[in-house]
Each structure stands twice: as structure tokens, then as C-alpha cells.
């Protein structure tokens, strides 16, 4: 944004307050634009903004245009709480964000008190466990995604033994714990449980341990750069059994960093811009044109979140927060009716979502979908 645009935006904001509020619906995104959550928050915000722009260019929601406010939480829960109160004071219809689980914990109690629907980006299971009827998730949780990986290892590959390499922080440890619980009842045995550190450079001993365990497959749950290092080390040590992960193992960044070594790696991905789906492909192109980079899962979360709200409001037929929140529970939104949701999507009674997801394998430096997981709500039909 340059200075002229900034002045324009300020002038526009001033002008907007003069226009009667009847014609618009106020929404707010509270996201991490500075601090530890900047990357996730910014892309989430971009996704939200793109959706708002499209809706406003079209017919709006029930004929009303969206009046969007974006505020930076600085990745600080104390500030996130204040900002939630601020936008509620301003009488917003719904809130998007925050993306970080900690900030969500405070913002969602405020939005619940004010009965304002809140679409969050966090993946921690605790968020929807508290039975808050106004909070809705825009992504899968670890508790949803990792059991699918377990199923794949047990049913599809039929591995008798598996080694686990995880990263010892809230992300890696959380995922590992879900994995261990899910695999307990199956015929697959965990023969090695290997801890690594965030920003670890040398994976030789972790890989050696996995190799010596003689497992039929390895589950790798570390973040992007570490994934690339681990994959390189596996190739170096000549390991040739399946390497399986969740989202992070086959990300574009990993493929770029690991090169050849990424070939063959398999992962479950909930949201990916590479999904074999015309809607997502179109979205990827639009996003890239607008912001100049490939959208990640956070960008898809923000984008689809706005369209989910639109669909819920249209279902209710009026701007009533309580009714919309009620309608969100158990809602099914089909992509053919509401293209902006990209994939058919359903919400359960806790505000958790369900939709299609994929298993991808890296082949020749590209993600290729090898299996599609149907959401539970379509197979039940």
C-alpha cells in the first residue's frame, strides 16, 4: 500500500461512516499481522479480503455489501481480547480470526458473551471442546487429520511396524500424541519414538535410529524446513520404505528445499492449492494474480470462511446472529450452490468442519493425489 492509497483508504473510511449503515454488513478480521503469527495471520487475512472483494463486486450478502475492518492482534492474547471488545462495540455481524490458538481462547469467550459468530483458524482441539455455540473452525484439527494417516498406514500400506519422528514443541508433540492414541488399537506396532528439536539441522542420528528399528514405514511430523532436512538424510542413508506425514511433509517449500529427496514421500493434506479440483485451481490462480504468491492452507481457510458465513446467512434469510449461529450447526454447503466454499463442506454440532481431503505423493518434484478421502457426511448420505 502506498501513501496515496493509504490516504484514499482513510478518506474512504471517513466517507463510509457517513453512508447509512443499512446497506452494509459489518465484519471484522482480527489477525496476527505482527509478532510470531505474522505469516499465518497475513495469509489468512489475504484470503478473507479476496472473498470480501469478490462478494462486494457481486451481489453482496442478501443484497448488502460487506464493510470489513482488519485489526492486528500483534500475536498477543491481551490485545486480541481488547480488539474483540472493540469490534463488538462497533456492532460487527461476525468475526474472522484470530489464527493462533492462544488468542482464540480469549477472543472466543468475548464473542460468545456478545453472541457474535466467530470463524477461527486454530487447529487445537480444545477450541471447540468447550461447547461454545458461536465458534466455528475453518480447518481440520490434528484430531481429525492424523487418524486418517494411521488408517492409511494400517489399511493401505499394511505396515506391521512403524517408526515415529516428531518435533518436540506444541505442534509436533500434539500430533505425535494423537498418532500414538490412534494407532494403539490397530495391528501396527510403533517400534521407535524419536524426538527432534525445532530448527534442528542434523537428522543423521534420528534417521539412523528409524532405520535400525527396521520399521515397515516411518511417520514424520516436523515442520517444513526440518521435513526437507529429514527427507534428504533418508535419501543419503539409502532408506527405501514409505515415508508418511501430514500436510507439512510434502509442502511446496519442502519439495523446493529437498529436491530429488522429496520424491516418493506421502502425506495427508486437508487443504492444498494443488488439490485436483477445478474450484481450488481457479482460486489458486486468482489468489496468485492478486497477491503474487501461492496460497497456503491459511489463505484457503480465510477465503472459504467468508463464503461459509455467506451461505449460512442466506440459509437463514436475514441478518440475525443467533439464527445464523444456530443454522451453522449441522449445515451442509455444496460447492455447486456456493462456489466460494471450494469443496462441499459440513459443520457438526460443535462447530468442527468436515470435508474432502487427500493423500498425495511427491512424484518428479510435484504433489500428485493418490487417494481422496471422502468426508463422512457424503458417505453417510
Amino acid at each position, binding site marked *: *500500500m502506498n501513501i496515496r492509497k*493509504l490516504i484514499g483508504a482513510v478518506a474512504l473510511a471517513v466517507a463510509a461512516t457517513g453512508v447509512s449503515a443499512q446497506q452494509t454488513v459489518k465484519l471484522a478480521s482480527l489477525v496476527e499481522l*505482527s509478532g510470531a503469527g505474522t505469516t499465518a495471520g497475513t495469509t489468512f487475512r489475504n484470503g478473507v479480503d479476496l472473498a470480501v472483494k469478490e462478494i462486494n463486486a457481486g451481489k453482496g450478502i442478501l443484497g448488502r455489501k460487506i464493510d470489513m475492518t482488519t485489526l*492486528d492482534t500483534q500475536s498477543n492474547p491481551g490485545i486480541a481480547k481488547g480488539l474483540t471488545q472493540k469490534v463488538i462495540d462497533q456492532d460487527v455481524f461476525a468475526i474472522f480470526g484470530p489464527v493462533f*490458538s492462544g488468542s482464540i*481462547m480469549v477472543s472466543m*469467550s468475548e464473542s460468545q458473551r456478545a453472541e457474535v459468530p466467530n470463524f477461527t483458524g486454530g487447529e487445537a482441539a480444545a477450541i471447540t471442546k468447550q461447547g461454545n455455540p458461536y465458534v466455528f473452525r475453518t480447518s481440520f484439527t490434528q484430531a481429525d487429520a492424523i487418524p486418517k494417516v494411521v488408517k492409511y498406514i494400517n489399511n493401505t500400506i499394511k505396515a506391521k511396524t512403524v517408526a515415529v519422528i516428531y518435533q518436540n514443541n506444541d505442534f509436533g508433540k500434539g500430533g505425535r500424541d494423537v498418532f500414538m492414541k490412534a494407532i494403539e488399537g490397530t495391528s501396527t506396532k510403533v517400534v521407535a519414538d524419536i524426538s527432534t528439536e525445532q530448527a534442528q539441522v542434523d537428522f543423521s542420528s534420528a534417521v539412523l535410529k528409524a532405520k535400525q528399528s527396521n520399521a515397515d514405514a516411518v511417520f514424520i511430523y516436523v515442520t517444513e524446513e526440518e521435513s526437507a532436512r529429514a527427507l534428504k538424510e533418508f535419501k543419503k542413508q539409502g532408506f527405501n520404505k514409505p515415508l508418511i506425514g501430514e500436510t507439512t511433509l510434502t509442502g511446496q517449500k519442502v519439495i523446493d528445499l529437498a529436491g530429488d529427496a522429496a520424491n516418493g514421500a506421502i502425506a495427508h493434506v486437508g487443504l492444498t492449492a494443488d488439490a485436483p479440483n477445478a474450484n481450488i485451481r481457479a482460486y489458486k490462480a486468482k489468489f496468485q494474480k492478486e497477491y503474487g504468491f501461492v496460497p497456503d492452507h491459511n489463505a484457503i481457510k480465510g477465503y472459504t470462511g467468508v463464503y461459509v458465513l455467506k451461505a449460512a446467512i442466506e440459509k437463514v434469510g436475514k441478518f440475525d446472529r443467533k439464527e445464523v449461529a444456530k443454522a451453522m450447526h449441522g449445515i451442509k454447503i455444496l460447492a455447486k450452490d456456493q462456489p466460494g466454499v471450494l469443496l462441499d463442506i459440513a459443520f457438526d454440532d460443535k462447530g468442527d468442519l468436515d470435508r474432502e481431503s487427500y493423500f498425495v505423493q511427491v512424484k518428479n518434484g510435484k504433489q500428485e493425489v493418490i487417494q481422496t478421502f471422502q468426508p463422512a457426511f457424503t458417505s453417510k448420505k
Partner: protein
Amino acid sequence: MKTKLPFMMSLFAIASFVMLVLPLFLKNYGVYLMSYWLIFVLATIGLNLILGYAGLKSLGHAAFMGIAAYIVAMMMKTGIDFWVAAPIAVIACFAIGWIIGYPALRVQMHYLAFATIGFNEVVALIFRNEEHYTGGTFGINNIARPSLFGYSLAGNLEFYYFILFIVVTVGLLTYFLVRSPWGKAFTALRDNQIRAESVGVNIQRYTLLAFATGSAIAGVAGCLLAPLVQYIEPTQFNSQTSILLYLMVVLGGSGYFWGPILGGIIGVLFPEWLRFAEGWYMLFFGLIVILLMVKLPNGLLSLPEIINQRKAAKEKAAAQAR
């Protein structure tokens, strides 16, 4: 300073009017923001004592806020009343501050700054890793606001006045402390240690005392922050927060009694007022901080002194020219 007493009094009257009446006209967010600011003012009063009066470069101040906040939150979660938990938390901060004061006797200046950053990181790591007690990265949620003699302080406005009362009380105590022989000893320590010792100031005891008292005040701030936000997590109390507090003391005017209030305005309220600049607001904030540092290295409150000095220099020059 003596001639300025009526001026100070009227300033004080205006300030108390603003603090007491303004929140009645604000919405939830405004009241919350003012409460948040007051808590940082309180923490900064403590740091000002350590840094501004005793001259100890501490960069671990947020750790003490965190220690108190976690003690209060954990005790309240087990059903212990706020009024029991809070004094324990403050005493704990005083004790830990006293212990941390010992290395402060050995290391000085930037070495002390490094040591205290290290201390802060250790504390933040404990908050993060002792998941069983502290909730780890997910923190502690739904911390209740206390009630006073059966009167609930759960409302934003009620809690604001409660915080205001505590801040004013602690502020007054500090005001008298820095004017007492103790306070004089602190400043003597800051200005010239050897000379201070030569006139009989026990360096060891006063260093420890300054550190422990400042830490206890940070503890009071922590006790209030936990029920204000009603949620605590480790990153709220990491060394970045300590650096922000340090910045607030320096910008406000370290060693000036009113410094923390101005510093708090710059550190907490400024970024909020700058939000109209959207994506640019943190950049503006940074520029303002740099500008202040360059133009007023001794803080905002050194401005009258600088003006007086300039005036005096001008008069002197004029007198000489005649």
C-alpha cells in the same frame, strides 16, 4: 521544582478527573484499553525503581509479572480466593527478586541485562514446558475476576476502578519511598557507587532492596493482568515484553516519577491510536520511538529541563553580549 508545586497540583487534578470520569463515557474497548495501560504503568513504576532510581539495567521485568500472574491463576483454579493468592504472589516476587538481586551485585551494566534476559527466558520456558501446572502453550483460560466485600468486580468498569485504586496506592507508596532515605540511597547508588559507599550506604542491601521492591510491584501488575485478560500464556511474559517495559521507562523518562505514565501512553496507547495507518502503524510507532530517542535521550520528562537549560543558555548569551 519547588516553584512548580501549584502547577503540579493542577495537573494532578486534571489527571484524576480524566482517570475517574473519562471511562464512564467509553465503551468496553476503551475501558479495557485504559485498564491494560494502567497495568503496564504499574509494572513500569516497578522497573523505574530498579532502572531509573537504582540504575540497574534489568531486562527480565516481565518474568515477575508472569510469575505473579501464574501463581494467582493456578491458585484461583484450585479454588483459592484472589485475596489470598495475590499477596502470596507478590511476596513470592519480592523473594525471587531478592535472590535475582545477588547476581546483580556481581554483574553490572550490559552483563546484568544479559543475565536478566536469560532469567526471563528460563521463566518463560518453565511456563511453556511444565504443562501439567501451567497449561503449556495453551495457557490458563477463564480466570475469574475477584469480588471485594461481596461486591463483584467482574464488570469492565468496576475492574478498571479497582485497578486505578491499586495503581494510585502503589504510586503514592513509591512516591514516598523515593523521597525517603531509602530512595535517596537508591539514587546515590545509581549516580556514584563508590561515593555512596563512602558515605555509608550499604550497597549490597540497597541493591537487593531495589530489585526486590521493583519486582514485587511487577508482581502486583501480574496479579491484575491475569484477571483482566482472564487468560495467560507464556508469550505474554517473554523477554520481548521486558524490552517493551524497558523502552517505556526510557521513553517516559527513567528516574522521573511521572515517567511510567507517559511511557505507558507511548508503549500501550500509541500503537492503538496509530491503527488508522493500517499496515503502517507499527512502522510509525517505530519511527516515533527512534525520533524520541534521538531528540530526547533522557525521556519525555527531560523536556522541561532541556527547555529551561536552553533558556538559561540564551539568557546567559544575551547577558554576555550586552
